């Protein structure tokens, strides 16, 4: 068994008296693609934000590479890249300037060639690279943010609704990219509504409902998770 990279250990998050996450447990090993499926308000984004150190757990812990996120926030953040659901990079900067700026923030500068190669990899048209992001479509902004996440060369990727706003071709390309990164040993944690997409790329899927993991699916050796089973469980509210 490879090392545990992401672990939720009896993770609880509450805002005031309202419980958002309740005793959530899961683990992801190196190279895993762990998808958390759930409806609106299930607690998916809260889970991701807790692992990013943006929301403190009220009980239990969120751990990355064996370290509690809230006790080692800055250290942990250096190991992760994050793709938010609604990507709003700086509208007055172009794609390359945005990427350079955010990489510089993380003290991970990279060469122009690598940035170009990555933008090509995420299929952002070269003629758009020098245009301000304010003129981009949602899909183009998403691709820029994906490129930024890849360029951080982090061993762990957190993706919040990553295919939202992408066209079918781009979704396909993105899924291939995720598979490729996973094969390279990058651990990916994504939250999504997209059952079919998740089944296509993830080797572990958790169903989240009202802040609790109600089901967990594991992919068989050299195969995908059964979409039908996940879909039925998702439609029935969790329990199969």
């Amino acid at each position, binding site marked *: 068994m490879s090392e545990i990279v992401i672990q939720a250990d009896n993770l609880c998050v509450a805002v005031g008296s309202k419980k958002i996450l309740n005793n959530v447990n899961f683990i992801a090993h190196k190279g895993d693609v762990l998808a958390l499926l759930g409806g609106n308000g299930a607690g998916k984004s809260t889970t991701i934000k807790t692992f990013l150190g943006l929301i403190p757990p009220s009980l239990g812990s969120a751990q990355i590479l064996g370290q509690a996120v809230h006790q080692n926030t800055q250290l942990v953040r250096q190991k992760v890249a994050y793709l938010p659901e609604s990507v*709003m990079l700086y509208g007055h900067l172009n794609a390359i300037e945005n990427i350079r700026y955010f990489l510089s923030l993380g003290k991970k500068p990279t060469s122009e060639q690598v940035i170009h190669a990555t933008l090509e990899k995420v299929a952002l048209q070269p003629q758009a690279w020098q245009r301000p992001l304010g003129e981009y479509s949602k899909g183009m902004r998403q691709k820029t943010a994906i490129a930024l996440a890849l360029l951080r060369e982090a061993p762990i990727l957190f993706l919040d609704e990553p295919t939202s706003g992408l066209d079918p071709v781009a979704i396909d390309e993105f899924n291939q990219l995720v598979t490729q990164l996973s094969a390279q040993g990058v651990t990916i944690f994504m939250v999504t509504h997209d059952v079919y997409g998740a089944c296509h790329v993830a080797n572990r899927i958790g169903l989240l409902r009202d802040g609790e993991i109600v089901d967990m699916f594991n992919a068989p050796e050299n195969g995908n998770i059964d979409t039908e089973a996940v879909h039925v469980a998702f439609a029935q509210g969790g329990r199969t």
Partner: protein
Amino acid sequence: MNWLAIKREAHFLLRKKQVVLILVAALALSLFAVWTGSKEVAQQHATIERLLKADAQDRQAVLEQQHDYGGVAYYSFHLTYSAPSPLAFASLGVRDVYPWKHRIRMLALEGQIHESDTENPELALAGRIDFAFVISVLAPFLLILLLHDLRASERAAGRLELLTISNASGAGLWLTRAMILSVTLGFALLLPFWIGAILHQVGWITGIGVTLLCLLYLGFWALLSYSVAKLPSPAPMLASILLGVWLITSYIVPAVGHVVIEKSITGPKGGDILMTQREAVNDAWDLPFSETFDPFVETHPEWENYTQMPSLFDWKWYYAFQQVGDQKAQALSEEYRRVAQEKYQLANLFAVRSPATALQRILSYWAQTDAEAAREYEQSVRNFHQSLREFYYPLLFKKPPFKREAIQQRPEFTPNRSTQTNASAG
């Protein structure tokens, strides 16, 4: 915070249109303030130069036309003035409220001093567009515009989380941004001042002092804005909090202070002094000579044996009742000055609660354009007038033969902040 981060953030922030717009506005406002201040100071210098020439010519003409000392004293005007200091261009203070020049005669003085003063104003409220106003009142407003939404704008744009995750320096990013914005704003505001300071030959120590004081003041507002900008509230709410503090400290506290001071400390008006002195002088024409000479010799016993009147009019009697007019207004005048001093001190207490007013008062004190400087000038006029009386009284009472050369020894007004040495008996 390191040099690379500063360079990156400066490059990033100075490409934002709204940031550039605010900085250009700050530079333009400061330039305008320094320009108007310089223009006003240049006009005051030009007025003094012009009056000095005319004043000397006028006195010379009087001297040539008159044949006795009383006539020379009566018809001669003496320009007294307080020239603007080198720093006055930056803080014009109360020089438009308090008179800074007079044409003094040997007549009763109090009426001449208070001729243009009927309001007895003390606490100057913000309002004039000089550098002191720009830096004390407008600069915090611009700083608030720049800093209030430091985090809130990123939160509203949906970038805050990505920035927080991507940023390896933690809170250093916000501190760097706040510092760059504050320093650039400070530079835009101070650059015109430095140019003005060089042109007006302000001393190095004063220039550095003003710079440090302004930076300290901007630092206070930057720290306040930075602290409020940390709150997890929307930008309009943060702006409201900061603008509320700005409005209260820059306008409401001084306005309330003005009302409280005016209501709580009352005293004679300049007009009361003027009327008392003039009525005393006018009445003296119809009173027996003794009514004038008795109070006069009480203050000038050395002339007790020279009060005989050879005719119905004599210059010594005329100037004695001018002096008695001043003596009758003296109590009011002293009360007026005591009340003005009390108001000034109370205004200092209010200024502690209003950083903008405190800064303006310090700058006007350094520029010698505050109420204290005006009172020192007023005292220098009194001292000069006293020296004129000391010069003329022996000539009027002892009546030596008229010699124009004797007038060459007449005191000349020398402008100086020191109230004790202003009037020089030549």
